[in-house]
């Protein structure tokens, strides 16, 4: 070696070079081995084009296989923005807007929608004329990236019928998307993993929402490896879309139609009547009807008025459509009054008071009650609905004629601290399902409210002027379904169901089963359900036994049958109904809910052999239960039992 060159310095350079190479090895180990899987995911995102194909949603049928929701195919113009060169973007937007008769901004908004996949076609316009598609194909050079596809579009053939139960679909929102993504690693109750993407149409209300995981199906996924120019490399893998499960409801479209028609008729009639308290016409802005099978909890009809046509909301809903449906001016058509509106049920609550009193006084059935025009409780005067009073009555007549005084007195008796701490009526009411949701498989259910001393004390804690103590007067009000008691029509129907079936509180439900029919008409629903599935939320389920003696229930059921005959409040409303063939027990209610006008309530239990039904009707600010709600209920019973109907006929204007 040359004596002028230092071996140490050569070694230093050698070491320096080797350490540079070692640095690279370390870096490669980190990139390729330690964080290789991340890079592999990124590489897949970069080079794999995934095109989703919307799955057809399952249909929705009523209990007899009548179609409530289905799909049709819509000829759609779609655009793959990755195929449009930047320089031609404005030109293509202009051309599309011209041919599709859209505003340029509308097309541009879809074009620039960052949430949609950039390399898959995005729908521009639904239901395009065939001639437009032919034009687009003939002038393909002016429309790079434009294709036409047939996509399934939701359709509700019965329009407004049962709209609150069926619900509607709409574009997935951020919250739903997040929920779906959070669950993307495990299967849901349908047994498969839900796949969601921005822009998906998903259930937004009713059955469409609650059972969306079942009904939505599984989108088809086509994956193609593409090169940097977007040209496919190799053979694509294809996973075809799977149609969603069909939902078979417990609803009976016939009963539902009768309920909705009668409800509308009742509302229309009420608006022609003058309220004696205010001197104005009744507002009758809204109402609800619920019909359930008391033995199973099957909801046969659930109507809320005003309603809406879910077809308005499919695809690109007209701007403001949703806002209009939630607007108080239009009486909030989206609001499902049958389950979401908790208001005082009035005298329809009296049968519950009667069962509670039965426990305290074993001789209740043989007692006689004075029914004077008014009594004084504390320093307040409580009046009967009948200005002249009703003489001396037994319990059954008190129910049939809805004597308020009897029940004021029973309420005061039950408010005695020496018996069940004076809370027995509340306990019984809660056992009948009041004050808590019925757990129906619909969203937005109100809990209602059963007031007691503790509740009143806490509720008015902010109030300076109101006396927070619980008085006999409060108990009297509760006994006639007034004051602070609040219940939904569905809660009342569920409670009446327990009276009808001998004391079991059945959980109401709208879904019969989910099945895979793959036909447009479910002809044999029973067969389909045998092979189908019933999720937990829809299974027939007893919520519990009501806190009532069977003898009391039997007595009260019979007493209630007096309502629709003889001197009963609804005798006029049921005049001509074949009561000799079909057993009907009912209770009317004219509920005060100041400052609003009185609401009209009627609940009925009907039996003809095994064919049983409970029907509850409620019309807001419509006056007497016997006049408006009772004929609505009658009309539903006529439909259910096939009794020839002559339409809606208002009952006598009786307030009880």
């Amino acid at each position: 070696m040359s004596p002028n060159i230092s071996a140490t310095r050569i070694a230093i350079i050698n070491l320096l070079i080797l350490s540079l190479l070692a640095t690279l090895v370390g870096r490669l180990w980190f990139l390729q081995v330690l964080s290789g899987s991340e890079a592999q995911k990124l590489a897949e995102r970069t080079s794999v084009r995934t095109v989703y194909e919307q799955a057809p949603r399952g249909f929705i049928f009523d209990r007899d296989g009548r179609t409530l929701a289905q799909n049709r195919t819509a000829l759609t113009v779609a655009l793959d923005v990755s195929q449009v060169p930047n320089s031609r973007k404005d030109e293509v937007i202009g051309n599309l807007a011209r041919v599709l008769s859209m505003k340029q901004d509308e097309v541009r908004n879809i074009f620039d929608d960052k949430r949609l996949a950039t390399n898959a076609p995005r729908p521009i316009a639904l239901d395009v004329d065939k001639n437009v598609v032919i034009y687009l194909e003939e002038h393909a050079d002016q429309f790079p990236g434009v294709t036409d596809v047939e996509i399934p579009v939701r359709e509700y053939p019965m329009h407004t019928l049962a709209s609150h139960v069926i619900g509607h679909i709409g574009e997935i929102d951020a919250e739903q998307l997040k929920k779906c993504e959070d669950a993307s690693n495990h299967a849901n109750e349908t047994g498969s993993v839900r796949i969601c993407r921005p822009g998906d149409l998903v259930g937004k209300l009713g059955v469409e929402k609650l059972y969306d995981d079942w009904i939505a199906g599984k989108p088809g996924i086509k994956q193609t490896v593409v090169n940097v120019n977007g040209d496919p490399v190799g053979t694509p893998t294809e996973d075809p879309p799977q149609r969603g499960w069909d939902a078979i409801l417990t609803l009976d479209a016939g009963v539902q139609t009768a309920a909705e028609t009668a409800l509308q008729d009742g509302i229309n009639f009420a608006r022609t009547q003058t309220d004696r308290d205010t001197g104005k016409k009744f507002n009758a802005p809204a109402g609800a009807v619920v019909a359930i099978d008391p033995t199973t909890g099957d909801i046969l009809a659930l109507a809320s008025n005003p309603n809406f046509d879910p077809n308005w909301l499919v695809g690109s809903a007209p701007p403001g459509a949703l806002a209009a449906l939630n607007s108080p001016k239009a009486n909030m058509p989206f609001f499902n009054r049958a389950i979401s509106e908790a208001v005082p049920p009035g005298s329809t609550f009296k049968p519950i008071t009667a069962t509670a009193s039965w426990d305290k006084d074993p001789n209740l059935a043989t007692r006689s009650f004075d029914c004077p025009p008014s009594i004084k409780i504390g320093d307040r005067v409580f009046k009967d609905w009948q200005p002249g009073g009703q003489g001396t009555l037994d319990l059954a007549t008190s129910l049939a004629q809805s004597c308020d005084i009897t029940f004021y007195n029973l309420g005061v008796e039950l408010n005695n601290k020496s018996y069940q701490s004076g809370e027995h009526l509340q306990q019984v009411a809660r056992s009948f399902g009041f004050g808590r949701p019925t757990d129906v498989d619909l969203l937005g259910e109100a809990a209602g409210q059963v007031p007691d001393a503790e509740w009143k004390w806490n509720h008015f804690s902010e109030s300076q002027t109101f006396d927070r103590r619980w008085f006999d007067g409060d108990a009297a009000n509760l006994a006639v379904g007034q004051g602070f008691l609040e219940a939904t029509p569905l809660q009342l129907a569920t409670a009446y169901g327990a009276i009808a079936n001998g004391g079991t509180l059945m959980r109401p439900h709208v879904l019969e089963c989910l099945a895979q029919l793959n036909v447009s008409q479910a002809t044999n629903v029973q067969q389909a359900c045998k092979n189908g599935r019933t999720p937990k939320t829809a299974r027939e389920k007893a919520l519990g036994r009501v806190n009532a003696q069977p003898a009391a229930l039997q007595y009260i059921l019979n007493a209630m049958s007096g309502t629709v005959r003889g001197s009963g409040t609804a005798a006029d409303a049921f005049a001509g109904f074949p009561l000799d063939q079909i057993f009907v027990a009912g209770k009317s209610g004219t509920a005060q809910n100041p400052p609003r006008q009185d609401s009209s309530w009627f609940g009925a239990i009907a039996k003809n052999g095994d064919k049983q039904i409970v029907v509850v009707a409620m019309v807001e600010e419509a006056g007497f239960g016997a006049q408006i709600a009772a004929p609505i209920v009658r009309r539903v019973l006529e439909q259910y039992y096939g009794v020839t109907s002559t339409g809606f006929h208002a009952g006598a204007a009786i307030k009880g």
Partner: protein
Amino acid sequence: MSLGQSLGVRPQLRMRGMFTRELDLVTLGATAGLVVIGLLAIFTSTVDPEQGTLLKATSALFNRQLVFLVLAAAVLVITLFFDYRHFKVYATIMYIATVVLLFVVLTPIGSSAQGSQRWISLGVFKLQPAEFAKPVLVAMLAAYIADKRGYLGMREVIGCGLLTAPLAFAVFIQPDFGTMLVLLWILLTMLIIGGADWKIMATLVVVGVVGVVGLFQTPLVHGYQQKRFEAFLQPSKDPFEEGYNYQTTRTAVGNGGLLGKGLFSRKDPVNLTAGDYVRNQPTDFVFTAVAEEMGFFGGLTLLILYAIVFVRGMRAAAMARDAFGSLLATGLVSYLAFQVFVNIGMTVGLVPITGIPLPFISYGGSSLVVSMMCIGLLLSVRMRRFARALP
């Protein structure tokens, strides 16, 4: 001068003996390995994977690189036969010629690509003088320092700096920032080996770093270079331009994993190399093809082959019969190693992106010829360690 004289041995018998005994087959073998990996990488990054069977598939770039390889191999053999010590004499002439060529590039005679004026068109192929500037600077500095008898004072260090300056300036205004860095690196290592005082070296490094950083503050540095530097610091900020390169190259490297995606993308279609996602893949980012398709083990093999060549080269430097030989070998090895580090380093996100090719692997005639010439010189230095003094 006869052939025997020019080989630095006694004619005939001595020469045969030298080739059989002293030719470093290990370096030759490792070089061959690198060249094979390079050809595979160029082929896979340029071939169209849709094109029928591999035997029928063609790649124009691959074919050209084969031609360059024949040329480069010839240059290696010629360099081998040529006594390296003659370079000491010719260094000055080559140096002047290179400076002239580098400035010719900047005139309208030169041709440009991607914003840089780097090539001189010679009909069939383009010459990149900057590639030759690197070994020429090594030879020039080796020749200059060899005469200083193992001590470099301030005056000699400045002399070396002045020799480097014209080349560095010429490539800087092309602009070719990467090659400038290589030239400065060559200066640095040559001064270390040449015996420069450590204090002077330290001063020089500080001045150099401050100077390079200062350059970035002047309008002399092109906007794209500043952008690249920013992209290096924050790749996600600019995902479409410079940031794209960092993102894509790192993804492609990581995608290879331990074992790689398989050569010619036949095993796994999710392959950024096959999809042409990596820009400038056969040239600047050729390492991504190696890393993605041959995996960590492929990259490791490549780096081990480099290590063999470099360690053997440094041994040649240690064994050399004269200071010029030591200096030449050290300079060549350190320059090749630096290129390897910067090129792979930019691919894996360790250093900012510069247009420095990966020796033996990147597509490009100038780079391949010069790299092979370096191998020829290293072999020549080692082979002639016992040679007679030149007349």
